[in-house]
Structure formats: structure tokens, C-alpha cells
């Protein structure tokens, strides 16, 4: 059998082709095996998610508001905290300072909640209550934009912070001196 150069090349190409084909088939088999594993994993994920949902629901049912109320009634007897248990700002702190003496005038009360207790939650509701001095119309329906609104919000925010408020008082005093 005489092996010419061309023949060797042909056999070589054919061998390479065969090897490639075998490798392709092997790879395809492997890919499909992995696909099948992914499919199985997906199914397991779904099953686990369903289990989680089941357990969540069970937990929610066992800890639902009515159950907690029963538990509280029987075991703990907690009630809603009273006003004395809250200390919101420096004004309430100040009120703790000294007991009101006999015949002393009633302590001054803040007549309006300016929203300074929770400035970061201010969604502009305090502005909604503002009224035009000219038309008497409420600002509720009007949208407030522009630098004035920003300044107003800043003031409300600063009012919550004692140090910033003091800084604001000091500044005009400093300019007068």
C-alpha cells in the first residue's frame, strides 16, 4: 500500500474531522446533560419556593394579629404606652426639669405642630394648609415649586435640630454686635 503525500493528508483530514465530530457529539451530550440538570434545579427551586411560601403563610397565620392579641391578653398584658413614656424633643425634656409649683401658671403649650418632629417625613402637607392672603384660597390644590418652597422645607428641617436652630439664632445676633 503506497501512501502518497495526498493520501496521508486526506486520511489526516478525515481523522481530524472524525475526532471533531466525536468531540462535538460528546460536547452536545454534555450540554444536554447540564441542561437537564438545570431543569432539575429549576424544579427544585420552584418546590423550595413553594415550601417557603407555605412556611411563610403558616408563620403569618400563627402570628396573626388576633393570635398575638390573645397571647398578649393571656401572657403579657401590655398596653399602649402613655404620653409620659415618650420624649420627643427638647421641649418635653425641658418639661421634666422642674415640677410645677402651687399656683404657678399653666405651662405654655405649642399651639401648632409645625412638623418639626419628623422633618424627613415631611411630604409638604404643612404647605398644603397654607392660605393665600389675597384670595383666601388654600394651597392644597396648587403645587408648590421654586426656591421659596425649598427654603421653607429647609427651615422646617433645621427646626428639628437644636444645634442648627441655635446656630440660626446666633448669626443675626453676631451681625448686630
Amino acid at each position, binding site marked *: 500500500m503506497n501512501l502518497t503525500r495526498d493520501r496521508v493528508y486526506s486520511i489526516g483530514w478525515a481523522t481530524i474531522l472524525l475526532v471533531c465530530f466525536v468531540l462535538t457529539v460528546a460536547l452536545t451530550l454534555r450540554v*444536554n446533560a447540564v441542561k437537564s440538570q438545570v431543569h432539575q434545579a429549576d*424544579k427544585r427551586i*420552584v418546590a423550595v419556593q413553594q415550601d417557603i411560601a407555605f412556611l411563610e403563610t403558616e408563620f403569618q397565620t400563627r402570628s396573626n394579629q*388576633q393570635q398575638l392579641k390573645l397571647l398578649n391578653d393571656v401572657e403579657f398584658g401590655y398596653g399602649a404606652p402613655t404620653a409620659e413614656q*415618650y420624649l420627643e424633643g427638647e421641649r418635653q425634656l425641658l418639661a421634666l426639669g422642674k415640677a410645677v409649683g402651687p399656683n404657678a401658671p399653666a405651662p405654655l403649650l405649642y399651639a401648632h405642630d409645625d412638623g418639626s418632629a419628623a422633618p424627613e417625613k415631611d411630604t409638604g402637607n404643612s404647605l398644603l394648609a397654607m392660605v393665600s392672603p389675597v384670595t383666601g384660597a388654600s394651597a*392644597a390644590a396648587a403645587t408648590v415649586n421654586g426656591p421659596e418652597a425649598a427654603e421653607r422645607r429647609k427651615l422646617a428641617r433645621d427646626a428639628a435640630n437644636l444645634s442648627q436652630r441655635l446656630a440660626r439664632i446666633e448669626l443675626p445676633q453676631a451681625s448686630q454686635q
Partner: protein
Amino acid sequence: MNAYSAITAHGGLSIPTTVSGGRRKLANVRQRALLVAKWRTLWVLAGFTIVGVCAMARITWLGLVGAAAPAFNPADALLPQRAEIVDRQGVPLAREFRVYSLWYNPRAMTEGSPLIHSPREVAEGLHRIFPDLDVTETAAKLASGKAQYLRKSILPEEANRVHALGEPALEYPQEATRYYPQGSMAAHVLGYVDSFGKGQVGMEQAFDKQLTSADGRGQPAVLSIDYRVQGALEDELGRGMKLSAAKGAAGVVLDVDTGEVLALASLPSFDPNRVQPTDMMISPEQARMGEVPHGFNRVTNQVYELGSTFKPITVAAALDAGTITDLGRRWPAAPLHIAGFTIHDDENMGSSLNVPETLIHSSNIVSAQIGDELGGKRLKAKLEALGFNQRPSIELPARGFPIWAKGEWPRLRTMTVSFGHGVAVTPLHLASAYAALVNGGVWRPSTLRKLDPADVPAGRQVFSPATSARLRQLLRMIVVYGTGRKANAEGFRIGGKTGSAEKPGVGGYRKHSLITTFAAAFPMDKPRYVVVATMDEPQGTEATSFQRTAAWNAAPVVGRVVPRIGPILGIMPDNTRDIDISDLLPLIPHGSGND
């Protein structure tokens, strides 16, 4: 020897052929048998080869193109058939829950009897697992040979025990059902899903399309309800109902600036997980007695004459119209005789009253005069602006139509409406009206959807802001000095008005059947929430000091609800704040300014 004798007898050579012929025949037979056996072996081999080649081809094919599994998407598999309903904090109030059911499938066994044991034995086995199961009925079901449910919603451990019975015909498929983890809480808001998968009564019905649509299923429907507030309101209403031996109770908590309903409760309630036919229907006798089914929503569907809670609205309308310019003006408080009808007060409160005193002591006589001076036209227009002439604006399907007189009101009707008789509205109407009274005068429709701040409706200006500011002072005074004292939770600056109205019955008002209401808002220095509590036919009990009016049953409920919900909603009690009522204090006898 036989062969030899044959040669000699014939004188020639003759070869006996019997033996050799038999051998050849035998050899042929043997060869043929061998051939057949070979062929058979070949056939078997060929059969095996074909099967093997087929199997290999199939395996290779499967390996190359993948198993022809149905397209599987985990996201689709986890998508519920009906979207969740969550509260404003994202806590699920209604969700899909997969439960086991007990299903009898007589075709599970392909041959012979569908059951291994007798139907009676199987039924007895099931009875040991489910003690409330009827053995005879179940045995009949099993014997009938029809595929059917034996039981719905069984526990996993019960499913295991059914499996241990060893009957292939007893199957326990997992099925998606609607489940309400909070039980009967907010039942009237949520409603329920019937056996056909259709939403009924509450938001399940209102949102039915959205909840089941392809786009809507993935997203939970967010309600404006806060389940903690809802729980507190239901607790306290239930407690108040027990203490006053009332037939029913209703309550609502409303955001004054947006119209969002934070809680809406109607008692007695029902459990949407186990809806009984009696929850939705009552007998004609019960209906005649004035009873309503538990599924009936008293907040949005039942209209009541809400009595004295209308008086602040009358005063606000008069302030707006300019018929009251001086709150210190005194009005005669002697019983009024109009068109053969006498308007009187429950007790004598002096010969004359000014406006703050009228509200503090809840005088019908002076309210009637204020309404009379205002005129029916203007009072009617104001009440129409508050939406009292139409169904309440809410998404729920059950919305009651007010009892509302059309046309021009005669003088007597104007006077009775001014103290809350002659017009019947739902407690939700009243809550929206009170929100407008205290929020600067803007009426907004109430909603059960959680609103983005940008989506809050602009509403309509019903009262002037100055009137609203005055009303805040007056409502606070009622709670500090008047009939609402039992609602004065310390530090929460509650303001509100009591109302006790006699229920209409056959042949006029029934003196001993009251509807008592307390409509309140807090904190009065910057109102954020309106709370309305209504009691249906409260009785005078020891707990209510044998009193039946709103001051003794509805007001204490609000007084207990507010401290529970205030801190949750970001309103902290504060004894160093209150609304300034100092300019009105000189108008009331004990209001020296110091108490």
C-alpha cells in the same frame, strides 16, 4: 446375515439400503434442525440488535437534541393564579396557598375493583384520620365509583396518614386556594373568593379583573389599609361592643390629607377562609327584626341618621355663609315648636347658649336655630358638596345610597337635618366630611388604594380654611369640656363630636334603640387622621355606667384606639403641645383659661 442371504438368493450383488437411507434422512433432519436453530438464533440476535440500535439511536438523539420536556419557566410556575393583596406595609392579607385535597380516583387501579379493601373499611380508616367524617356517606361515595372530592383542605400529616392506608384510589393532589393569614381581620375590605374562583364582597370583587389578569397576577394589589391599625380598631370596637352589649359596631380611620382609608371595620365579622351561607344571608324573620348578615358592611353600606355629629357641619356651614359672625352670641334654649313638632334637648342647659356651648352640650334647639338662620338651600348645598347626596366614594362594591330628600327643603327638615335627623348617610360619608372639616376645608374622595403623594386628588374646597381652623378649636373643646371627655387620650390632642340618634322603627323612632357615633380627628393642632366609631343599639351596662349615649360607649372606643394607633402612624403623644383655644375659653363658664 440378512444381507448375505440376499446375495445368495438373487445371485447378484445387492446393497441393502434401509440402514444407509435412514442415516441420511437422520442427518438431513439434524442439519435442518440445526439450520432452523441457527436461523432462530439469528432472528433473536437481529431482534436484540434492532432493539439495541433503536435504544442507542434514541439515547443519542435525546442526548443531542435534549429531552422534549415541556417548556418550563420557574417564574411562570411560581406565578399565582390570583395576585396577592397586601396592606400598605406589604404584609399579605390575601394570598395563594397550596393545600392538599382528598380526591377519590376509581380509575387509579386499572383492573378489578378500584379499592383494595371494602368501601366500608376504607371509610372507617378515613374516619380514624378525620373524626368528623361521616362513615356511611363516605362509604356510599366510595362504592358509587364516581371520581369526586372526599374532603378539601387537608393537612400534610393527614395526607401522610391517608397514604399509609395503602389505597391507590385515594389521591391527595395539591391545589391552589385563596387564603387569608389574618383570619377575619378586614374581612369586609377583602371579601372572599367563591368556589368558582370569583371574588365576592370586598376588594376581591372590586379588583377581580386586575387580580386575575396576565399582567396583574405578578404584582400584589396594595391597599391603603395598615394591618396594625386595622387590628387595633377591630380589637377596640369588639371590646366596646361587648362592654355595651351592642348588636354591632363600625369604625373607620381616614387620612385627612389624602382620603386613604387606614382601617375599616364592621362587626360582627366573618372569616373569609370559611364563609358560611349564614354570613351572607339571613332569614326574613331576622331581617324584619332589623338584623343584617355578618357580611354586610356597616361602614359603607348601612346608612344611619348620625345625629349630633352633624352639628359641627351645620356650624361650619353657618360660619362659612356668614350667618354666624360672633361665636359669643347667645341663642334661646327653650324647646322649639315648629309645624306641630317640638324640638327639645335631652336636658335643660340654661336659658340661652352660645356656639361653643351648643356644641359642648350638644343642643338640638340651638343647632336647629342655627340651621334655620342658615337656610335649607345653603345647608343642602354644603351637604351636597360633602357628597351626602350620593353613594360614598370608595372602591368597594357594597355602597349604600343615603336617605336624601330632593327638592327644596321645608323649614322643619332644615332644622332637623341641622342636628342630624332626616338625612341618613354611611359612617364613611361622615369620616370624609370630618376630614374636610379639619384639614383646611378640602373634601377628597376616600380610597382603599395606597396613593403615591403625587396621585393625591386635589379635592374640592368645601369650607374656608378659617372656618376649618375654628372648627378644630371647637371640636377640641368638645373633647376637653364636653360630651367627648372619655375620648381625651392624654397627649394626643383629640377633637371630636358625639352623636346619639334613635333608630327609626315601625311607627316612629324607637326610644331605646340608639345608634351612637363618635367622630374624631387627631392631633387637633395639625390633624392627620379621622377616626369614626359607631355602635348599633348599645345597652346601658355596668361598664358604661348604665348609660346608652355615645359619650359612654363610642367615645371611649376612640379614646382607646388613638393611643394604640397614634405612635404607629407617627403621631407621638405630647403634653407640651395642643391647639390654642384660649380665645374661645372666655365663652364657656368654666373656661377661665387655666383648666
